[in-house]
């Protein structure tokens, strides 16, 4: 069986790094949004979402990420996706998410881009 959704979250240089595993459905998307909100309240403005271990996502799950960019817009924060499966990347592009969020090959690259103030 495709494993169920799980996530791990880490704070690195004031940046929240969420790594998912398994199917990002509505439940998974909401779990990401809740984890984000928790840190956002405490002032975190930079977030990386590593989707390396999520080869399957759906548009309901992804729509929860719009909540995140919306909140970040208000405070001048930023979301960066990393380790995107090409098909998932295409889906996010179709949704227009890259108008509000960045993408980088790896978490390391994303952290560097934040450090460089990009």
């Amino acid at each position, binding site marked *: 069986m*495709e494993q169920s959704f799980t996530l791990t979250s880490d704070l690195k240089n004031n940046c929240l790094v969420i790594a998912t595993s398994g199917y990002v459905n509505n439940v998974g998307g909401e779990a990401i949004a809740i984890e984000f909100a928790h840190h956002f309240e405490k002032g975190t403005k930079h977030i990386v979402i590593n989707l390396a271990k999520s080869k399957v996502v759906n548009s309901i799950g992804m729509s929860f990420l719009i909540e995140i960019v*919306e909140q970040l817009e208000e405070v001048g924060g930023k979301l960066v996706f990393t380790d995107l499966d090409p*098909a*998932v990347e295409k889906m996010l592009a*179709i949704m227009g998410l890259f108008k509000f969020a960045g993408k980088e090959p790896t978490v390391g690259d994303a952290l560097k881009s934040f450090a460089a103030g990009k």
Partner: protein
Amino acid sequence: MKEPMKLKIALPKIPDIELVALEGLDRLARYMGIGEEKIGEARILVTEAIINALEHSGEKNPVVRVEFSMTKKELVVLVRDYGKGFEPGSIEEPDIKKKVGSKNKRGWGLKVMKSMSDDFQIESGKRGTKITIKKLLS
């Protein structure tokens, strides 16, 4: 190998049941030697069609029929529900700029299916909805 390989599934509404269809899709695609990126896009197309059918049919115990027909060149996916149907022309195109700041963030499935497929047809009426998706694989 000219004859398409077929696999059919009738799914009940339980959480993540669309993954059963994806398992079938993956096995067909690997057997046919389809590249990872095309499989990935096909997976998204199939997922979106099935979750729509299960969610929007309006039935208490919906059954969704999924048919895959695959050659090395092309995948045809049919997804049928027996629900209340809808008027595709009346559905507004989602726009991320409007979604940011508005309450309903959803509404991406049809757009994703249209954009990612090579052909996308909806037949919908009082007796349900039939989605036909074509995806070139090579």
